[in-house]
C-alpha cells in the first residue's frame, strides 16, 4: 500500500489493484480474475497456454488471436470477448487493455488502470522478436507481475538466427545421412515459430494437433509459412526429406520409431544445460525458448519502472531476492502457472 502526502494530510492513495487468491489473480475493484485456475465469472486471459486459460469460466476476455486459439483448443462454445492490442474496455471502472508480450501468437500483457494506479500482469513473455508473435512492448506501471521461468544467470539465449542456422544445418545433415528430422516443440508457440523461421529449404510437416491450431490461427488473420499436416497417406520416404514438427507427447511414441531412423531434436530453453539435454536423451538439443532469458527479464522489469514486482512462476524466490538486492521491491508469489502447456493431459489425443 502506497502513501502520499497531499496538502499536509497523509492519505492512503489506492488499494492495491490485484490480490492473489486461491482462484488466481483477482482485481477487486473490477471484480474479475486474470488467468484464474478455478472457474470464475470473468476471466481476463493473457494467452492460450493451458496453465493460463482453463475450461469452465463464464466469460473470457483476451486478444483476437487468443480467442481463435482457445476456441480451437478448449471449446468452440466458450463465450469470449476479444480486443486488439492497445484497445481499452472498462469494467466496473477499471480500464483493461492488452499489450504484446511476444511469448506466442496472441499473447498479451494485461494492463489495468484505476484512478491513476497502473498494474501490468505479463503472463509469459520474451523480449526478442520471434518473427511470428507480435513484438514485446514494455509498459510503464506501478505494479508488475512477472514470470521467471529462466530467472537464473545461466540462462542467456543466443540470437535466434544463430539457433535457426544450427537447426537448418542439422536437418540438412540428417537428410544426407538418411535420417528423418523430428523437432519436438509445444504446439502453441514454438511450433509456429519453428515453421516460420525454418521454412524455405526443406518441406515442413506438422502433427495434426499443430495443423488444426495453425488453421485456426491463419483463419484469425496470421499468415503462416507453407506446411503440410502429417497424415497416414504421406510415405515415410517423403517425410525423410523434410522437417517434422511434433508436440512433446509424441516424444516416445511408436510412431517416431516407425520413421526412417528418426533424429530427434528438442527445442526448449532447458536445453541450455547439459544435464537436461542428457535427461531428454534426444539426438540434439536447441536452447530456443519463448520465455525471456535472464538479461531479458531484468531489462523488461527495469523498463516498467514499477515500484513493486510480483514473481509468479519459475525461479521465483531466487529471482525476487536478486531484484530486492538490486533495490527493486519484489516478492515471490505461489501460483499454479508454469506447468508447461504440453505436459498437460489435454494434448494426449489421437496420434496420426
Amino acid at each position, binding site marked *: 500500500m502506497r502513501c502520499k502526502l497531499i496538502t499536509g494530510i497523509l492519505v492512503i492513495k489506492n488499494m492495491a489493484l490485484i490480490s492473489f487468491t486461491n482462484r488466481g489473480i483477482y482485481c477487486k475493484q473490477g471484480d474479475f480474475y486474470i488467468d484464474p485456475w478455478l472457474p470464475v465469472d470473468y476471466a481476463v486471459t493473457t494467452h492460450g497456454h493451458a496453465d493460463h486459460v482453463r475450461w469452465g469460466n463464464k466469460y473470457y476476455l483476451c486478444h483476437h488471436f487468443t480467442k481463435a486459439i482457445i476456441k480451437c483448443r478448449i471449446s468452440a462454445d466458450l463465450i469470449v470477448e476479444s480486443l486488439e492490442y492497445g484497445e481499452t474496455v472498462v469494467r466496473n471502472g477499471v480500464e483493461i487493455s492488452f499489450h504484446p508480450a511476444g511469448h506466442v501468437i496472441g499473447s498479451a500483457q494485461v494492463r489495468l488502470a484505476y484512478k491513476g494506479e497502473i498494474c501490468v500482469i505479463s503472463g509469459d513473455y520474451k523480449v526478442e522478436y520471434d518473427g511470428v508473435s507480435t513484438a514485446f512492448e514494455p509498459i510503464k506501471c506501478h505494479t508488475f507481475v512477472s514470470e521467471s521461468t529462466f530467472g537464473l544467470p545461466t540462462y542467456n539465449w543466443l540470437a535466434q538466427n544463430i539457433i535457426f542456422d544450427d537447426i537448418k544445418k542439422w536437418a540438412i545433415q540428417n537428410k544426407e545421412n538418411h535420417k528423418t528430422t523430428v523437432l519436438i516443440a509445444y504446439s502453441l508457440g514454438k511450433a509456429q515459430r519453428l515453421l516460420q523461421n525454418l521454412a524455405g529449404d526443406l518441406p515442413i510437416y506438422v502433427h495434426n494437433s499443430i495443423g488444426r491450431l495453425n488453421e485456426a490461427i491463419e483463419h484469425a488473420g496470421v499468415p503462416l509459412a507453407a506446411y503440410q499436416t502429417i497424415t497416414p497417406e504421406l510415405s515415410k520416404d517423403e517425410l525423410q526429406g523434410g522437417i517434422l514438427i511434433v508436440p512433446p507427447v509424441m516424444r516416445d511414441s511408436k510412431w517416431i520409431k516407425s520413421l526412417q531412423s528418426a533424429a530427434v531434436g528438442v527445442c526448449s530453453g532447458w536445453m541450455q544445460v*547439459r544435464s537436461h539435454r*542428457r*535427461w531428454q536423451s534426444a539426438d540434439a538439443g536447441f536452447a530456443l525458448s519463448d520465455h525471456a532469458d535472464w538479461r531479458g527479464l531484468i531489462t523488461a522489469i527495469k523498463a516498467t519502472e514499477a515500484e513493486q514486482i510480483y514473481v509468479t512462476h519459475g525461479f521465483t524466490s531466487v529471482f525476487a531476492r536478486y531484484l530486492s538486492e538490486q533495490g527493486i521491491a519484489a516478492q515471490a508469489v505461489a501460483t499454479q502457472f508454469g506447468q508447461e502447456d504440453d505436459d498437460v493431459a489435454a494434448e494426449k489425443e489421437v496420434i496420426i
Partner: protein
Amino acid sequence: MKKFSRLISKLEQSNKTNDKLSALVDYFSEADDADKIWVIALFTGKKPKRTINTKLLKEWIIKITGLPTWLFVESYHNVGDLSETIALLLPPSTSESDIPLHQWILELKGLVRSSDQEKKEFVLNAWQKLNTQERFVFNKLISGNFRIGISTKNLIHALAKLTGLDINHITHSIMGKWDPEQITFTDLINGSHVNTDSSWPYPFCLAHPIDVPVHELGPPLDWQAEWKWDGIRGQIIKRNDELFIWSRGEELVTDQFPELHIALLGLPNGTVIDGEILAVRDGEVLSFSTLQQRLNRKIIYKKQLEEAPIAFYAYDVLEFGGIDYRNEPLHTRRAILEQLLPIENIILTAPIVLFDSWEELVEERKQSRELNSEGIMLKHKDSLYHNGRKRGDWWKWKIEPFTIDVVMIYAQKGSGRRANFFTDYTFAVRDGDQFITIAKAYSGLTDKEIKEVNSFVVKNAIEKFGPVRTVKPELVFEIAFEGIAVSKRHKAGLALRFPRIVRWRRDKKVADINTLEDLQMLLQSTLRASER
C-alpha cells in the same frame, strides 16, 4: 582444441553407442597423436595433477560476473556442474583460438608453481578466446574429471576399430600406469611397454548376476562354487622381486595393506593372483564396515591394524612362472593356486563350497549372511579367465537383500544428468509419533517416476535449505539393503548398507511403514548370527 570440443558435444548429444563409437573413431583418425594420448588418459581417469583449485575459480567467476555469491551457488545447484556453470555465466568471448589440446594441458600443468595472480591471468585470458562449449571443456581440463558417458570399453572398441588390433590386446595395453608425456600413441596402443613394466595388471574377469534357475546350469560337477566376498577385489603381482597390489578400480594399493607384503617372500617371481582383500580374524571374515577403516589411509595406526587385520582370499592365478595362464581352464589354474598358497594365515585360497546337488547348494547358500558373505559365485570348471564381463561362464548368485517400507522426508536435487530434478531422497521410519532418518538413496526409479516425485516435491516442500527440501511425509517407498550395523554417527543409532529404492509403494500409507523398533530387532538378530 576445437576438434576435441566437438567430440565432447557429439559424445554427449547421442545416447546411441554406435554414434559414440563413430564419433570417437572420427576423432582418433584425424586428431594429432599428441592429443590422442591425452584423450585416452582423460577418458580412462588418468588426470594430470590439478594446479588451480575450485576456490580460486569460484572467486574469479564471481568477480567477473558481479553476481552475489548466493546467486552463483543457486546457479551451480541448478546446473549441477561447476565447469559448466562457469562456462554459462561468463560474458560472451571476444576472440577465437584453436590451441591444441595437449598444449592446453601442458600449460595448465606448468602453472604448478605460479602465483594465484599468474594463474588468474592465464585462465581469464583463456576464457576470453573460447566459446561456451570450449570453455566448458577447458574448465574440465582444469578439474581433470571427464565423466561424459564414455566407458573404457567404448573407448577400447573405438581404438580397436581404428587400428585393427585385438580388443584384449588394447585393454591390457592401456591398463595400469603410463605417463602421457612419456609414451607415444603407437607405443601405447601396441603395448610395447607392457613387457618392460613389472607392475602391469590384467583386466579383471567379472561375473553376471544369475538369471536362470541354478539347476538349468547343467550337472553340478561342472561347476565350482565359492563364497561371494564383500571386500576389495584385487590383484597381487610379484615380478622381478617387486610387489604390486592393484584394486579393481585400477589403483595401486600396495602401501595400504602391509600385512600382504609377505607375498614378496612367499610368491615366486612372475606370479599374478586375483582375489579379495578382506578383514579377517581367527579365520572369520569380518563385515565390510570393519574393512572400511583400513581404506584410503595414508598412515595406518596400530589400532587399525589390530581391529581390522587384513587377509587375501585368492580366487585365481593369472600368471605363473612369467606365463599368462588366463587361457587355461579354471581347474588347471585352481590346481596351481593351491600349490602356491597358503602363505602363512594371510594369503589363502578362497574356500570352495562343496556340493553334490543343486538342492544342497541352495541349503549352503542360506548361511551366506552368517559368514559375512554376499552369496555364492559359480564358475564353470573349464572357464577361461575372460576380459571383463562375459555371460555364461561365471555367475554371481547373491542372497536376497533385506527390505523395509519407509517414507520420504527430504529431497535434494541430483547432480550431472539429474541436476534439475529432485532425485536424491532421504527416508525415515517411524519412531513413536516421530520420524527418524534411516537412509539416503537415489536410484531405482524410472525417469517417469522421478518426474512425478519431482513434481510432488515442488508442490509439497515445507522448508528449503539450499538444494534440500523438507517435504510432507507422504510418499512411501520400499527400500532394499545388504546389511545393518550399529552406528554412532547416525541419529537412529544404526546404518544400512547399500540402501536403494526397490519400488514406489503407491498402495501404502505413512501409517504402514516400518518402525525403528523393527530395525533394532533386525540388527539384534544379525548380531546374534555373526556371534555364532
